[in-house]
């Protein structure tokens, strides 16, 4: 990976951000689905 | 508690302790199995060492490995046996939970001290590289270590007695709880082989005493919840 030189770090950073946003999206979807199910329970 | 209650309570404790002692002496299966277990384990160690000189740190650790597995074989009996014989419920009716706990704790203390004494004697005789230079540090370590073992192992035994896979679950649950004890006690044993003076091991002994006190108190508080059906 030497050829990337100075930019190595920023690529790592972007990958980590991407992974994090993926996790966040998953949790958000879960949250929304739970809320729908809870509303169904009430009604 | 009034003195009459206290006396009755102590009699319950003694009664439960003696009951367990008598039933173990009557059948002798468990005791002889434990003895054979210790002999076998030490034999395996001697065999695998095969005249290789192992440093005292390793030998100190191995001593406690033998003790650990001996404890795991023997200390759960006092509760598991009640479940197996179906006498647990009767015992619940006959005695208050605290009496049951202390009676069985006493039994385990006697058992583990006797077992460890036997293990240590065999170990000292048979394992060549293991030489104790500070007898006082060693004796105190063994005593406090055994008490610590009993205090942790008894409450875990009460927990797994109600579970399904008792045999394998017991070491799994016990090991994390016993690990702080093991670290300190192995280190103290090693320093006993190096001839450390009593004062130097003082920190370890303080640790062991606090471990025993904390675990016994906690066990006493929690036992009622575990024991009652």
């Amino acid at each position, binding site marked *: 990976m030497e050829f990337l030189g100075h930019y190595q770090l920023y690529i790592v950073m972007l990958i980590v951000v991407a992974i994090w946003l993926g996790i966040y999206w998953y949790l958000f979807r*879960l*949250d929304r689905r739970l809320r729908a199910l809870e509303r169904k329970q009430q009604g | 508690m009034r003195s009459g209650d206290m006396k009755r309570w102590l009699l319950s404790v003694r009664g439960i302790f003696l009951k367990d002692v008598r039933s173990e002496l009557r059948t002798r299966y468990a005791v002889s199995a434990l003895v054979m277990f210790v002999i076998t384990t030490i034999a395996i160690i001697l065999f695998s060492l095969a005249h290789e000189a192992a440093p005292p740190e390793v030998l100190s650790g191995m001593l406690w490995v033998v003790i650990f597995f001996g404890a795991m074989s023997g200390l759960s009996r006092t509760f598991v046996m009640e479940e197996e014989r179906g006498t647990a419920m009767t015992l619940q009716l006959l005695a208050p939970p605290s009496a049951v706990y202390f009676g069985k704790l006493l039994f385990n203390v006697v058992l583990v001290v006797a077992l460890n004494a036997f293990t240590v004697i065999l170990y000292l005789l048979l394992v060549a590289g293991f030489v104790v230079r500070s007898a006082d540090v060693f004796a105190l370590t063994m005593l406090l270590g055994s008490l610590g073992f009993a205090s942790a192992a008894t409450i875990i035994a009460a927990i797994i007695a*109600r579970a399904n896979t008792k045999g394998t679950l017991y070491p*799994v649950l016990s090991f994390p709880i016993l690990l702080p004890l093991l*670290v300190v006690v192995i280190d103290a044993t090693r320093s006993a082989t190096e001839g450390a003076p009593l004062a130097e091991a003082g920190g370890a002994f303080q640790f062991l005493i606090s471990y025993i006190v904390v675990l016994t108190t906690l066990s006493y508080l929690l036992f009622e919840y575990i024991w009652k059906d």
Partner: protein
Amino acid sequence: MALRVTLGILLTLVICAGIGFPLSQNPQHWYELPVIPGLEEKARLIFFHVPTAWLSVVAFLTGMVFSIRYLRKRDPLDDLRSSAAAGLGLMFCILATLTGAIWAKFNWGSFWNWDPRETSIFVLLLIYGAYFSLRSAVENQEKRSTLSAAYSIIAAITVPFFIFVLPRITSGLHPGSKGDPDGTGPVLQFTMSPNMRVIFFASLAAFTLLFIWMFQLRVRTGKLEMERELQQAP
């Protein structure tokens, strides 16, 4: 809503700052991090390793609190909360052990050394494993909740012995152990520059928010399952 938005923005910023901010010998600007001799780039791990380790302990203590409540009131919801916390704790504990091992490899040469603090995170892992083994070994629901509550309390008392007392008595590799020339201070040695400290505490806060959110999600899922079982029971 506020929690999720804050969390999303905060953790993203922490990742960008923690990984992206350049190191320089003489930090002049707010976005420059100091070079710590011996650590250099590897120091960035501190923003992620310490919070996960911290969280695995927090999750564990949370589980213990709900265990105590369960033993008092016998509310199955408390048992649900206790095991939800434990599940998350297990996950963060695995992460902490992995990040720790990676850092150990870079810094001290090998992945594992049985240094007291490393051992204590491993012990936590064992405790979580034991907790779930116990749960799967008891069929009766009430007995399962009671026994696992008792065990988590016992384990919770033992762990501080390990994390706080032992590293002080014995020498080790981690900062704060007996052999450390910097002294036996608490886990965090504040040799961080002010902007590093900001990122660090922001990371701690962000991970904590993440834990809270995931915890709520698990408890809500569990509650729905419980209600469905109640409805299905004849």
